[in-house]
């Protein structure tokens, strides 16, 4: 009915499975078990449950079983999300697009294209998130236009779009990881830590992973282009490929990133480890996206900070009357949506005053 109001107050903290009860930990364990069996089944002496199932139901590989489960979780989560926050037009549009991208580009096209002799290609994932799309071996195996698409999107279009619209164009409207966090993971968004310590960890961790992504891609590319034959580069590149894939690709983005939803909140991967988020965050910081704060109207209630899935202490800025851009902000719009005084608004546009952009960190003395 009212486009900008919560439809009645939420009872988030009175719901056990959303408040780190035993049930929440149990759910988390189930997710861990699912991810370990999915990623490592058939290795390390673990039974391979999913590949035989995939073949039995005609889904080709276990990754399409995973893709199907993922998409279904997202659809269920989207229904939950729209029931909770669906009175907001921004939320409707954002979740609608995000789910459509997952269904079409994240699952259907990659599954269907090979049936017609095409390539299995994920149009909604780019380097450095989809790190192998810039490996020379991958690019040579793709039709030239897909290889070119991958390069242009990764190094030009995606960062540039983040300069103009913020990283939200990707992290909250397109990306499947973000999409799962915002739908299936939405019931736990308030569990993300907003402590200074968690912010400090995020800043080191996410830029470290971006550095690793750049270096590992460089080393692997040199190796695949035939450089350094007979030198240490070869074993280093081979080991880098294995370990980056294992640690970042499997453990951080898959197992940990999703399985801890019910305990630590839904954006652990996006906030702390995703190299794409780090890259787009830098672009965002240079660009036009910001959260605008209405002057002297904040009542410091903490709804914005609590419901920020990225752990940004939005309230700290709001009570200082400071419009701001944080590189981690994925522009989900929830802070503005839950604000009972309408203090916050997401904006793309030129900064009005030079000083607006100066003080974007919070000094120790000011909270």
């Amino acid at each position, binding site marked *: 009915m009212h486009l900008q109001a919560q439809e009645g107050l939420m009872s988030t903290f009175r719901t056990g499975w959303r408040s780190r009860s035993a049930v929440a930990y149990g759910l988390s364990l189930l997710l861990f078990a699912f991810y370990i069996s999915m990623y490592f089944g058939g290795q390390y002496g673990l039974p391979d449950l999913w590949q035989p199932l995939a073949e039995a139901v005609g889904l080709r590989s276990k990754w399409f079983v995973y893709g199907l489960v993922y998409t279904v979780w997202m659809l269920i989560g989207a229904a939950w999300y729209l029931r909770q926050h669906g009175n907001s037009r921004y939320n409707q549009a954002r979740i609608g697009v995000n789910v459509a991208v997952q269904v079409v580009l994240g699952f259907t096209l990659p599954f269907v294209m090979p049936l017609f002799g095409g390539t299995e290609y994920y149009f909604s994932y780019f380097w450095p998130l989809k790190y192998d799309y810039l490996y020379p071996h991958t690019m040579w195996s793709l039709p030239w236009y897909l290889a070119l698409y991958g390069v242009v999107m990764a190094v030009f279009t995606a960062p540039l779009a983040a300069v103009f619209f913020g990283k939200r164009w990707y992290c909250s409207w397109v990306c499947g990881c973000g999409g799962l966090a915002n739908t299936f993971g939405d019931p736990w968004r308030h569990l993300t830590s907003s402590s200074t310590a968690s912010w400090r960890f995020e800043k080191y961790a996410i830029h470290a992973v971006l550095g690793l992504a750049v270096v590992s891609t460089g080393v692997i590319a040199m190796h695949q282009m035939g450089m350094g034959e007979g030198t240490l580069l070869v074993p280093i590149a081979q080991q880098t490929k294995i370990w980056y894939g294992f640690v970042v690709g499997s453990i951080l983005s898959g197992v940990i990133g999703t399985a801890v939803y019910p305990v630590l909140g839904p954006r652990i991967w996006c906030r702390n480890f995703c190299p794409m988020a780090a890259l787009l965050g830098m672009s965002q910081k240079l660009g036009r996206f910001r959260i605008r704060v209405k002057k002297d*109207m904040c009542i410091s*209630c903490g709804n914005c900070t609590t419901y920020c899935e990225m752990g940004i202490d939005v309230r700290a800025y709001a009570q200082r009357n400071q419009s701001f851009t944080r590189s981690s902000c994925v522009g989900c*719009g929830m802070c503005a*949506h839950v604000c009972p005084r309408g203090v916050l608004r997401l904006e793309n546009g030129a900064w009005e005053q030079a000083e607006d952009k100066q003080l974007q960190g919070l000094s120790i003395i000011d909270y």
Partner: protein
Amino acid sequence: MRIVVVGNGVAGMEAALAVRRRDADATITVVSEESDHFFSRTALMYVLCGQLSHRCIEPLERGVYERLRLTRVRARATGLDPEARLLTLADGRTLAYDRLLIACGSRPRPAPWPGSGLRGVGHFVTLQDLAWLEAELHGQQSEPRPPNEWAHLSVSAADSPYGRREVAAETRGRTCGSPLVIGGGLIGIEAVETFLAAGRSPHFVIREDRFWPNPISAAESAWVAEALRGHGALVHLDTHVESMVGDGRGNVDRVVTDKGPLDVDCVVVAIGVVPNTEWLGEAVERDQSGGIVVGDDLQTSAPGVYAAGDCASVRWFDGQRRPEQLWYTGRDQGRVAAQALLGDDVRYRRSTWYNSAKLMDIEYTTAGLVGLDLPGESEWFYEETGAVKSTTRIVSRDGAVIGFNFLGRRWDHEVLIRWINERRSLAWVLDHLGAARFDTELVPPLVIPAAAR
């Protein structure tokens, strides 16, 4: 310099932080009877309904007191000797100061009716009120209290608003099923909203013939009442409470009004707040409302003693002095008081009035002079229906806009106030209204048809 701040609320804490920002060496002591940690009183309702946790409404990390060397004293201040510059605490200790800031806030206006002392009758203003209502509604407190939550109980006076209250649900053996809220103001509607969120259908007893009669008009008020009733509240307008009757075991059982009795098992009295200043006696000058009389530099009648926030009677835009019970004015006063404490020549100035609120799920913004029935004023009103329901009320006088009242949409009061100060005409304002819009993205703009102008 020894600075003592009485009150760990927004005015006191803002002042303490601002003093520390300027002066690394001052000894800063913050005295509070209510809580160990600064919290946002405006957010108590969100904790009661479960939308936020107790920790969520603390705007600062708990380490801030240690990091900024703010010494906390958890006790009730009971007396002030301005000659000797000594503050007395309930446990008999005294605190010596060079500069004192009194920022001890408001307390709920006591219920005047017979039977108001029954178990199950209380207010919704303090952390202790929250704990009481949580117990009445949910049977148990939702999470562990902050450390030393009740440490002050031994020193608390019988009439303290920060004392622990007996819970009717405990003696009854069941949680509250039929609550009643008295008082058609903001705390009243918040209490009603939390009862609705907890699945109860509260009675809402309002003395006036409509909800919140001064700030909003009859049409605006009718919309809020409709929202209240639509969500299940039982709104009783133009209804006067006469007494409260117990069940024979000390629990409240019935509220008798001039329109008849209502069966209840929990009553929230929300008929306003008064400055929490009785403890000061004659130490500083107070006005009839109990507010501490301060000059524009927030200094009281006693040298070196300042007051800020709800307990201070400051000068309003209309030139009169009275307490200003708002969150952000408390914060502003705290900042000004900090400068005064450090010896600056400062003035607290409140310019054009503005405020915002959320009435159920309807957003409210006001700026300037509205609802005062000034001679010669005229009103323009537009009710939007469709995808967005909203009302726009603009008051003009002598050809210039002097006030705005909005329901259902978000507006930037800064722009509205600028227009008022620039003495813009109604026609000009209607042409430019879009520039003051603060709606979230993709909300369709307010389009005023030519016929309505």
